[in-house]
C-alpha cells in the first residue's frame, strides 16, 4: 500500500495557480525524484507535504488515512521528516545538539530534568555509524564539511520512526565527493524501508539514486515514470517544455 498519496492537489495564492491538480502515490522504500524548473511548483508541493501550507483543493492520505496538518511540527508527528535546503543547522552547537534540537533527551525525575549529554552523544554516534558517515557527535557544526552537515541534517530524520523523508536540493552546494556521500545516505534510508522524495535540479543524482521521476511544469505534473523507462534527454525536454506531456 502507498505510504503517501496525493489526490488532485491544487494550491493557489490569489490569482496565481502554483500547483494544479497533481496526484501521485509513493510506496515504502521508494526514492522519487521530483524535478522541474524554478517556479514549476515543486517547492509549493513540498511545502504542503511538509505542513507549511494547506492545499486549496484535493486530499493527502497517509497509510490510507486522511492527512491534515496545521504547522510544520505536525508533519513530524505523522512520520514526515524534512531535510531543508539550508539544512536548518545551528553552527554554534555540536552535531549531537543539532540532531536532537527540539527533541533533547533529558534525565532526572519530577520537575528537575537536565540534559542527558551522554545519551545524546551515544545515540547520535550510533546514527552516524548507521549512515556510514564520519561525523563526530561532539564537534561543532561550524567546523564541518558539506557532506557532514548533510549527515547531521539527515540524522535528525532517524530519531523517530520516519516513513517519508523529503530532501530539498541536498546536493546543490557540495563537492563531488560529498555528493556521493549524500547519495549513499539516501540509499541507506531507502534500504530501511523509508520513502524518499528527492527534490533536485541535478539530473545525474536523480538518475543515480531514484526509482522514479516526477516532472512538474507550470504547476502541473507532466510525467511520472520509472527511471528505467526514461532518459535524461527526455526529462530535460519535459522540464523545459520541449516535450509537451507524457500520459
Amino acid at each position, binding site marked *: 500500500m502507498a505510504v503517501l498519496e496525493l489526490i488532485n492537489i491544487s494550491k493557489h495564492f490569489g490569482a496565481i495557480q502554483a500547483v494544479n491538480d497533481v496526484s501521485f502515490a509513493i510506496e515504502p522504500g521508494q526514492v522519487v525524484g521530483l524535478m522541474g524548473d524554478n517556479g514549476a511548483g515543486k517547492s509549493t508541493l513540498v511545502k504542503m507535504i511538509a505542513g507549511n501550507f494547506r492545499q486549496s483543493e484535493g486530499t493527502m492520505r497517509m497509510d490510507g488515512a486522511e492527512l491534515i496538518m496545521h504547522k510544520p511540527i505536525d508533519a513530524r508527528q505523522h512520520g514526515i521528516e524534512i531535510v531543508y535546503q539550508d539544512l536548518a543547522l545551528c553552527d554554534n552547537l555540536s552535531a549531537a545538539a543539532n540532531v536532537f534540537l527540539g*527533541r*533533547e533527551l533529558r534525565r532526572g525525575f519530577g520537575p528537575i530534568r537536565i540534559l542527558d549529554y551522554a545519551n545524546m552523544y551515544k545515540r547520535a*554516534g550510533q546514527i552516524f555509524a548507521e549512515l556510514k558517515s564520519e561525523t563526530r557527535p561532539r564537534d561543532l557544526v561550524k567546523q564541518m564539511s558539506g557532506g557532514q552537515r548533510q549527515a547531521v541534517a539527515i540524522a535528525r530524520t532517524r530519531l523517530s520512526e520516519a516513513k517519508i523523508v523529503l530532501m530539498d536540493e541536498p546536493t546543490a552546494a557540495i563537492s563531488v565527493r560529498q555528493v556521493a556521500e549524500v547519495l549513499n545516505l539516501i540509499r541507506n534510508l531507502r534500504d530501511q524501508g523509508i520513502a524518499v522524495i528527492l527534490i533536485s535540479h541535478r539530473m545525474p543524482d536523480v538518475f543515480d539514486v531514484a526509482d522514479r521521476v516526477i516532472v512538474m511544469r507550470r504547476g502541473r505534473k507532466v510525467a511520472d515514470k520509472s527511471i528505467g523507462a526514461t532518459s535524461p534527454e527526455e526529462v530535460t525536454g519535459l522540464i523545459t517544455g520541449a516535450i509537451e506531456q507524457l500520459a
Partner: protein
Amino acid sequence: MAITLDQTINQRQHNWLSSVLGSQTFWVLIAVILACIFLSFATDSFATTKNLYNITRNVTFVAIIALGMTLVIITGGIDLSVGSVLCLCSMILGVVMHAGYNIEIGIAASIATALAIGACHGILIAYIGMPPFVVTLGTLSIARSLAMVASGNTVVFQFGPDHDKLLALGGGAWFLGIANPVLYMIVLALLTGFVLRWTRFGRHVYAIGGNEHAATLTGVPVRLIKVAVYMISSLSAGIAGIIQTGWLGAITTNIGTGLELQVIAAAVIGGAALAGGVGTALGALVGAALIEVIRNSLGLLGINAFWQGCFIGGAILFAVLFDRLRNLRQSDN
C-alpha cells in the same frame, strides 16, 4: 592498523584543556589575575581587606545584570533599558516602603515591575517583530521618566518600618564576612550557568542565537523563549536595583545612568558575541571583574579618573580583537 568508522566517530577532537585555552573568558580571567597580582605589589592599598571588599561589592551590580544581559545577547538581542529599569525598580521599592508597607510588599512590587517591563519587551520583539535595539531604547527613556514621576524627582532615603531590614539586605555581610551582594551574585551566576548548560531552555537560547530559522523549523518555541530572556534581563536589573538600594540607603533618579553600556561591555569582554549564539555566565562575571579592577587600579595608581573611559574602551576592543585573531588563525588551519 586500519581506523574503523566507529573509532572516527568516537574520537574526541578537543579535550577539555584545549577548549579552556581556546575560550576568551579564560584569557580575560588570566588578565584579571595578573592585574591583581601586579597591583598587590605596585600599591600598598590594593590587597587590603577593605579595598578587596569594595571591589567585590562594586562588581556585583554590573555582574548580576550582565548575567541577564548575556542571555539576551546569546539569543542575538540586546537590552539597552537595564540602567533605567534598575532605577525604576529601586524607586518603586523606595516609594512603596516609604509609604509604610513592609519590605516583602516593596520587593514584590519592584520585581513585578521588572517582569512586566521584560514581558512588554519580549512581546514587542518576538510577536510584533520590532528590533530589540529600538524597543529597549524606548524603555531606556520611559522607565527613567516613570521613576521621576513616581518619586517627584526627589531623593528617597526613608524606607518606613522595614528601613533597617532593607539596609541589612544590601549592606550586610551575613556569611563569612562576604558582602551580601557578592553572595547574591554567586548564587545567581551558578543558577544562570546551570540553566545555560543543563536545561533544554538553555540549549534553545543558544539555538536561537545560532540560527533562529532552524530553531523554529525544529519545533523550538522561539517566541516564548525570547519573551523569557527579556523578562530575565529586566528581572536581573530589578534584583540589582533592590540590592543597590539597600546598600546605598538612598535612591535618586540618577542611579543606573549609563549602566547599560558597562553591562554590555562586561558581557562582551567576557566572551558573549553580539551576533548571538555565544556566551557564558562565568564570562559575564569575569568581564565585570575586569572592568572593576581597571577602574579601581587607575584610582590607586594615581592616574587621573578622566582616563577611565579610555582604558575600559580599550579593554573591550582588545578582548574582541584577540578573539577575532584567534578565530582567523583557526580558520586558516
